[in-house]
């Protein structure tokens, strides 16, 4: 069991002494000290013997679960039949599935995610239906029209009340994000070559009805794609351009009422097909046909289309928009005609199945196997979801404390101060989830000396992210090494090179000097590590010259201002301190965020501290680092990497794509176009006396799924 996972579940404080390799976990009233490789442990001052010694795997300290958990006061229950461990601590419960020895790596990752999501706990107790779910939001939707919402109006605040009304052929089912059919009945047929095009047939569900009573059929799907192609995805901008690529999709035809055939111009990769075209929201033909017809008759069809005021939307996602009281709230009502409320998702150790108790619809993934590890209702479970506008965070959190709202949708999560304030409230539950994004130090590889790999590696070596995160930032961030954060379990490569791992500050300087020297760098005065006051001090180097004898210019590190992001600001100050010790003249320059953005776009910078929020599918492996990509703002160029990134983008099955993704992450960690600094987990708050979610801990948190309106039960 990874020590950190367990400790963070308990909320325990963890310290790690690199010299003695001792891990200490502390909870009020409990203290456990373990040493890597040693079978002796100290529990509350008493020496005990472990059944197996703690070991380090891929940088994660693994501890015997039962010993550690019981020492911390957790009840541990193991069921041989279901191969499940149940942990009960105070009011928390977690269920871990232990995969069979032959289970795939994906299952292991997924069951770890499942353990975090606390799925098992939600299973208990009967599901109550009905009630009003009140969500606090900070901005109004920009539009009530789905086309505009996915186009120019694509903000969290617009999508939150709109997306629960719609559905695509396929989707990623939370909390594990299994790729599964939604409006489709089964997986699409394998892609076939037909003349100079490629084709695939998608079977559609026969049991679905739009909120206006019209049956869902192939005509809706054909209409949606034909209309988008006719108007031009590039003109629609926003999400349309990236989901429906006109370079890939030629046309869609109905085979019969309940199956459609896609004609593609090329063999698509996962990102273009499974995560692109097939995940496009489908429109109701009867409702939208006149709207498009009117739009096509005008000079600027997109403008006319986006100006459409969709007061009475026709929905298929389970909810339907009922009222938008501008400046106050947006109300969703459960669609009485929807069959999704009687639908259940059953996650197996491998794959999943979907069962509809009302219509008899059944789907199971081809790879399904192993015991059921979690079951959730598709929902909606509540009758109404109301998104209430608050113009300040203070106002929203006061309303949460007063019980006027059940949850605050806050994409940046709770600030430390607010967490402390809410933690004392008996009816409010705080939850922490990993985020799919990272902060990084980026190099402009077009410029000297950032174009020198050894230079970048040396800088990566002196940055002690682990130490900074634990001591200065008190564990508010999670240091990471790969460009795919660990929260995105399936795609994250845990075995990438970590520069200077396990070294102390002065050892890192020595190592960096060694890297620079072996690449031909020279100094007038080399940096020295000298003993001082029981420790070591670093005497700064002077006059660093490149392998060709050229002196290094003064370098600037652009970083957001403390007001915009105190964490990145703090990191920039430390990076400056560490890098300066090497004799590099680096100045951290707090800069307005928009200005940083402009400079990056113009490739006019030396180094930058930036951040990204990512999609589920790690397409950024291609987009940020491929030499042909317009998003490659660090101008990183590597023929070897381009090959791997191309293979990744072209892969048409998950396992193959994953292998290439791992390889790409390994190369990037070695070449360091980015020094990946950290990911910050998101902390959120909800009223545990008023609502219960099917799951709470999920990648990007509850806000990542727009407040989970479908998966919430209103209590009372």
């Amino acid at each position, binding site marked *: 069991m990874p020590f950190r996972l367990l400790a963070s579940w308990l909320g325990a404080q963890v310290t790690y002494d690199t010299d003695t390799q001792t891990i200490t976990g502390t909870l009020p009233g409990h203290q456990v000290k373990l040493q890597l490789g040693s079978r002796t442990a100290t529990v509350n001052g008493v020496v005990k013997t472990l059944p197996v010694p703690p070991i380090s795997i891929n940088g994660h300290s693994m501890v015997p679960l039962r010993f550690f958990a019981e020492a911390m006061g957790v009840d541990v229950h193991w069921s041989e039949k279901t191969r499940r461990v149940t942990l009960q601590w105070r009011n928390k419960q977690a269920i871990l599935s232990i995969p069979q020895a032959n289970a795939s790596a994906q299952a292991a990752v997924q069951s770890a995610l499942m353990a975090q999501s606390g799925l098992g706990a939600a299973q208990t107790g009967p599901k109550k239906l009905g009630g*009003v779910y*009140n969500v606090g939001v900070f*901005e*109004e939707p*920009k*539009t009530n029209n789905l086309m*505009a919402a996915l186009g*120019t*109006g694509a*903000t969290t605040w617009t999508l939150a009340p709109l997306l629960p009304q719609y559905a695509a052929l396929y989707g990623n089912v939370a909390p594990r994000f299994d790729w599964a059919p939604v409006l489709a009945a089964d997986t699409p047929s394998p892609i076939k070559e037909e003349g100079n095009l490629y084709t695939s047939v998608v079977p559609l569900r026969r049991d679905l009805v739009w909120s206006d009573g019209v049956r869902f059929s192939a005509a809706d799907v054909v209409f949606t794609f034909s209309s988008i192609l006719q108007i031009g995805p590039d*003109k629609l*901008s*926003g*999400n349309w*351009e*990236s989901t429906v690529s006109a370079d890939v999709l030629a046309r869609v035809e109905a085979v019969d009422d309940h199956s459609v055939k896609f004609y593609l111009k090329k063999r698509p990769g996962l990102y273009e097909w499974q995560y692109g075209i097939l995940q496009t929201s489908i429109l109701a033909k009867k409702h939208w046909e006149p709207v498009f017809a009117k739009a096509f008759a005008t000079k600027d069809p*997109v*403008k006319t289309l*986006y*100006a459409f005021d969709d007061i009475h939307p026709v929905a298929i996602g389970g909810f339907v928009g*009922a*009222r938008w*009281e*501008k*400046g*106050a*709230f947006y*109300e969703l009502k459960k669609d009485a005609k929807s069959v999704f409320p009687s639908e259940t998702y059953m996650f197996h150790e491998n794959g999943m199945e979907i069962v509809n108790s009302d219509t008899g619809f059944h789907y199971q993934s081809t790879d399904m196997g192993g015991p059921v590890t979690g079951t959730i209702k598709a929902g909606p479970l509540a009758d*109404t979801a*109301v998104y*209430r*506008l*608050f*113009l*300040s965070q*203070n*106002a929203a959190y*006061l*309303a949460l*404390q*007063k019980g*006027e709202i059940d949850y605050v949708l806050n994409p940046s999560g709770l600030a430390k101060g607010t967490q402390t304030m809410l933690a004392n409230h008996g009816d409010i539950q705080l939850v922490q989830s990993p985020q799919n994004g990272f902060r990084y130090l980026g190099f402009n590889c077009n410029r000297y000396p950032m174009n020198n790999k050894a230079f970048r590696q040396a800088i990566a070596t002196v940055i002690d992210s682990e130490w900074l995160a634990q001591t200065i930032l008190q564990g508010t961030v999670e240091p990471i090494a790969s460009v795919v954060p660990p929260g995105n379990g399936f795609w994250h490569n845990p075995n990438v090179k970590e520069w200077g791992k396990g070294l102390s500050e002065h050892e890192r300087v020595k190592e960096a000097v060694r890297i620079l020297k072996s690449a031909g760098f020279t100094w007038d005065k080399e940096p020295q590590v000298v003993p001082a006051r029981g420790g070591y001090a670093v005497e700064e180097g002077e006059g660093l010259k490149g392998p060709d004898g050229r002196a290094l210019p003064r370098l600037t590190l652009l970083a957001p201002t403390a007001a915009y992001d105190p964490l990145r600001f703090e990191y920039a100050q430390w990076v400056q301190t560490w890098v300066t010790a090497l004799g590099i003249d680096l100045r951290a320059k707090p800069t*307005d*965020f*928009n*200005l940083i*953005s*402009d400079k990056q*776009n113009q490739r006019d910078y030396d180094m930058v501290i*930036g*951040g*990204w*929020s*990512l*999609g589920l599918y790690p397409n*950024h492996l291609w*987009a*940020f680092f491929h030499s042909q990509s*317009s*998003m490659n703002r660090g101008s990183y160029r590597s023929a070897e990497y381009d090959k791997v990134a191309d293979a990744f983008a072209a892969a048409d099955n998950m396992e193959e794509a994953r292998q290439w993704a791992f390889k790409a992450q390994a190369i990037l960690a070695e070449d360091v176009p980015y020094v990946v600094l950290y990911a910050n987990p998101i902390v959120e708050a909800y009223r545990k006396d008023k609502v219960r979610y099917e799951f709470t801990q999920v990648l990007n948190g509850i806000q990542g799924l727009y407040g989970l309106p479908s998966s919430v039960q209103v209590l009372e």
Partner: protein
Amino acid sequence: MIAVLRFLLRRTGQMLLVLFCFITLTYFVLQAMPGDFTSIYAGNAQITPEVLASLQVRFGLDQPVGVQYWRFLRNVLTGSLGVSFSQYPTPVWTIIKQSLPRTCVLFYSATVLSFICGFSLGKSMAWRRGSRFDTAMTAVGITLYTAFYPLVAFICIWLFAFQLRWVPLNGFIEPALWREAPVTSHQVLAGMLYTALVVLGLIGATYLWERRRCGAQRMFGRSTIGVAAVAVALAVALWSVYGYIRYAWDIAYHLLTPVLVLALVSFGGNMLLTRDAMLETLGEDYITAARARGIPERAVRDRYAARNSLLPVVTSLTLSLGSAIGGGVVTETLFSWPGLGRTLLQASLSADLPLAIGAFLFTGVFLMVAHLVADIVNVALDPRLRSDKRL
């Protein structure tokens, strides 16, 4: 009469010139901010540069600044404020119209309330100059006038809404009531504004008629009070008949705290201004003369002293009404009252140029009109200005 017309014409000409400079300056200051509207997508890996570029083309941001400015000017001259970027393709005018009733209801109620309180208290203070009442009120006035407004607001919210639960926390309506409402809040707000306008108009007209007929023995005569009572009762009855009174009441209930807090921090200024103006008038010879003629004290106070000290206060009121249209970012934020102030702030921060400039232009025009009205009102109140050749 011709002099007055010439005066108006000259003032309008000046206003147009100032307005042109104002919008040009605003335009270029906003344009000079780093980044553009598409910068909000900068950290999102899903939005590719191609998508951003197509957005820029759609919004005309790919054109040189000069061309963009010319397009904008042409829009303004044709009376169109253009289309908002952030709420594309909603016209700027529609967005302003949406938040306008909310802004007016809140800030006009507060301004009028603070003016009434400030004026009557200030008058009494000057009249009883040096008394304990005067000293105490001066201290209260200065304290409130200089108090840090957000703190006062937050304390009031915390105490009255959160702890005592007498008033709502924030917002302008209660969703639970409005989910099934047959009318929109926008309609009700507009209805409330019209009703208030009619009722106040009636009261004002009666008041003026009564003063002219009977002179001012008292501040409010019998007819004024009677008409006020009837008008208010009639309005309430009409609203009740249509069944909308509970929606109007809900808004009024939500209005309570922000209006009181706003009035609390601003009446001090009006009060002290009235007091000073009144003290100055009380020293004039004509007051002594009026007293010598045996005119009752109350009439001396209200008809002679107060009317003349009204000038600076009315000027200040008119200007306040003009600037109130811009709303107040702090008030709107703290009370979650989405008015024009927030629209302006949000638009400026997200570089939604058309909306930001549209809102600035709108508030600018209003403020300038308020200045003009203040001048006209001054002329109406002060006969000396009418005979002045320099008009």
